[in-house]
């Protein structure tokens, strides 16, 4: 209340007031509409935490158990809410613990503002206690970073940080604030949000000749294939995208981060691209005549060998980041710009088309894949549970309305392949960086970003042990996340590669697990562990119905492999069904 009065006073009089740097940080966060912070205090960020004490009614701070957990939670929050995740950490080890999350957010274009404490400015470069060169350590993994040594800089630095993080192609920003600046009293004249930086252009100017050329090319196409990525979600262009593919009836396949931008049961949604994607989208990439890439970056896990990738096709590439155009795959028509703007421009020029015989080819491929892979995965003939059937049962119980957070590995590929999604921003996973340990903390943030939704973290027995300490965060805040551990008693994906490419030389993939139910119990979290099919539906129901966090461990087949698979170094046409 007191701070609101102060804010009103500023607006009324515009007279500068004396406040501390720490207080200025809080005012910036409030002005930016931040409601949740994930963080961990320490010596060099104490004045900021001291200021936070007076803002507890406006800013909900979640005390995590490790800074990596904090930043992954910030990522989860950003991914389900579309807003900027905010993370606090102290200097030195606090800041270095953010690095994995920064790299993950950088490669997956997740908007974050991370605020780190730093030693007093006069101690910079003296190897002071908990001093580390955070700015230089984080430069390659931040969209922008900046060190503040004077409180007067705080409002503007934070305004720029929020603007940069969540405009254009989003990304993580780190602001490092020395302790003296946090403590310093200065004359504060209010907070001005930033909406322009002369050296930074978030969006390239849309050129009509290219949107027109794209439309013309699509109108002439006989076998167009649309491949879409997270750009559709980040651009909030789900409706524009749907209208675009529907107008001329084009099949659309997704990258792992594009998943959920288009409802999984949409008749034109033909499935997942890439290494463990569906059979049709992969082989037919090499049969389409026009390939239309929307907000995706032709990652090597999507393209396989580039010299065998869509060589027959003309390529149209829509992206907000000009440096993505021609980076991996040459575009015949480059459509620079925000797809929220460019898609409707193209759609307006599209002719209604019937590509049903082309779309049917995807169905035929799907039949082939069902026979070879999917039927066995979803309805296995043995007693041993598969990851796929667990996800399938989860789909039936959640009707595709849940947020599903996945970690990295076999369970991730299976979950993304088989999970159903009705709405956007529902799939949270570490795509580009492949960060094991991502899911549990990301699920915490995902829940804060989408408080009314069911959040299920699907995690392997390897990944969960990397950040299992965040059970403490879940316990302390009674965060209603459902933790579904698919335990195959192996580091499954590495084991699969050792099986396929290293003559089954299982080198250090045999990982032991604790009794997860007992561990959960220690954190006062309810749990269950099952290994029989007859218990599966009931156990999932109990998990979903439970009021509060719940851990369910499901033992699945030890040596199941994820197929289809495009082996590394092969073209997408060489996808293997077994």
């Amino acid at each position, binding site marked *: 209340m007191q701070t609101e009065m102060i804010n009103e006073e500023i607006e009324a009089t515009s007279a500068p007031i004396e406040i501390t740097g720490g207080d200025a940080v809080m005012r910036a966060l409030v002005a930016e509409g931040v409601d949740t912070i994930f963080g961990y205090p320490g010596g060099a960020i104490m004045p900021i935490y001291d200021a936070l004490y007076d803002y507890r009614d406006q800013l909900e701070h979640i005390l995590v158990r490790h800074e990596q957990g904090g930043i992954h939670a910030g990522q989860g929050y950003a991914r389900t809410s579309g807003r900027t995740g905010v993370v606090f950490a102290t200097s030195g080890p606090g800041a270095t613990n953010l690095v994995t999350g920064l790299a993950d957010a950088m490669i997956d274009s997740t908007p974050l503002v991370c605020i780190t404490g730093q030693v007093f400015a006069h101690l910079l470069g003296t190897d002071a206690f908990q001093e580390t060169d955070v700015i230089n350590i984080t430069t390659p993994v931040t969209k922008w970073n*900046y060190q503040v040594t004077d409180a007067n800089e705080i409002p503007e630095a934070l305004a720029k940080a929020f603007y940069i993080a969540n405009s254009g192609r989003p990304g993580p920003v780190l602001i490092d604030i020395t302790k003296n600046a946090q403590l310093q009293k200065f004359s504060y004249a209010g907070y001005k949000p930033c909406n322009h930086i*002369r050296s930074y252009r978030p969006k390239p100017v849309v050129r009509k*000749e290219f949107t027109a050329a794209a439309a013309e090319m699509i109108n002439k196409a006989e076998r167009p294939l649309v491949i879409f990525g997270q750009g559709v979600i980040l651009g909030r262009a789900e409706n524009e995208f749907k209208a675009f593919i529907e107008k001329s009836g084009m099949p659309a396949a997704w990258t792992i981060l594009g998943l959920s931008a288009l409802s999984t049961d949409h008749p034109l949604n033909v499935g997942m691209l890439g290494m463990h994607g569906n059979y049709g989208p992969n082989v037919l990439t090499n049969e389409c005549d026009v390939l239309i890439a929307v907000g995706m970056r032709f990652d090597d896990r999507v393209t396989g060998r580039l010299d065998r990738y869509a060589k027959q096709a003309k390529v149209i590439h829509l992206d907000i980041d000009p440096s993505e155009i021609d980076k991996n795959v040459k575009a015949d028509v480059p459509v620079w710009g925000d797809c929220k703007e460019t898609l409707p421009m193209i759609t307006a020029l599209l002719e209604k088309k019937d590509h049903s015989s082309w779309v049917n080819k995807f169905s035929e491929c799907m039949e082939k894949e069902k026979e070879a892979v999917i039927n066995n995965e979803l309805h296995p003939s043995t007693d041993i549970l598969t990851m796929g059937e667990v996800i399938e049962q989860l789909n039936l119980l959640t009707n595709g309305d849940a947020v599903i957070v996945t970690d990295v590995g076999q369970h991730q590929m299976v979950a993304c392949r088989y999970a159903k999604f009705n709405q956007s921003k529902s799939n949270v996973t570490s795509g580009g960086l492949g960060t094991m340990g991502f899911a549990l903390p990301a699920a915490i943030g995902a829940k804060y970003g989408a408080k009314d939704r069911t959040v299920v973290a699907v995690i392997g027995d390897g990944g969960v042990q990397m950040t299992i300490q965040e059970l403490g965060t879940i316990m302390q805040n009674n965060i209603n996340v459902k933790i579904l551990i698919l335990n195959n008693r192996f580091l499954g994906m590495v084991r699969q590669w050792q099986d396929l490419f290293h003559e089954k030389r299982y080198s250090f993939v045999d990982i032991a697990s604790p009794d997860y139910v007992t561990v959960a119990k220690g954190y006062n979290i309810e749990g269950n562990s099952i290994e029989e099919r007859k218990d599966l539906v009931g156990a999932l129901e109990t998990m979903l119905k439970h009021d509060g966090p719940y851990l369910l461990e499901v033992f699945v087949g030890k040596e199941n492999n994820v197929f289809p698979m495009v082996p590394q170094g092969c073209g997408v046409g060489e996808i293997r069904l077994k």
Partner: protein
Amino acid sequence: MKQEYTLTIYTENQVGLLNRIAIMFSRRKINIESMNTSPSEIEGIHRFNILINETEDVVRKIVRQIEKQVDVLKAYFNTNDTIIWQELALYKVPTAIIAEKVKVERLLRTYGARVVAIRSDYTIFETTGQREETDTLLKVLGEYGLIEFVRSARIAIIKDSKGFHEKLKEFELAEPTQHIIDEPISAAEAASKVV
């Protein structure tokens, strides 16, 4: 084909930006042949010249990545035929040897060198020019007991550039015109891409 490319980068004057730009090269294991930072024609705006030996494809991609950096206004890349470039070299030679063995005037005239300091024990020459010119004098003076040699980074002016004054005005607009948002490929290339 690898060849020399000179990058010209207009940036804000920001601590840490040098590192942010340098790591774009080291990440790709590209050696920077020379790098110079200086003021530009506009107060407050810095100008980097970076010389690398690479293929056009690699250079084009790296220039886009550089231009993407928040504090970078604009990045250009040029082959040697489209720029005027110079390097500065300093040579320290024992004065005694020079006095005895070298016809100083001839040296100065042939290589366009200037004497910048004469002490009883050493003399410092300076030349500006292109690599072959400074290299030739280096070789010549090597025979006369060269004590020290240093050469600066390449600095370059783009022949058909109109400078940055007009561009900056547009950068300062909230909604820059298309004209100023130079496409990441040249206009001619872009046009050829329209089907």
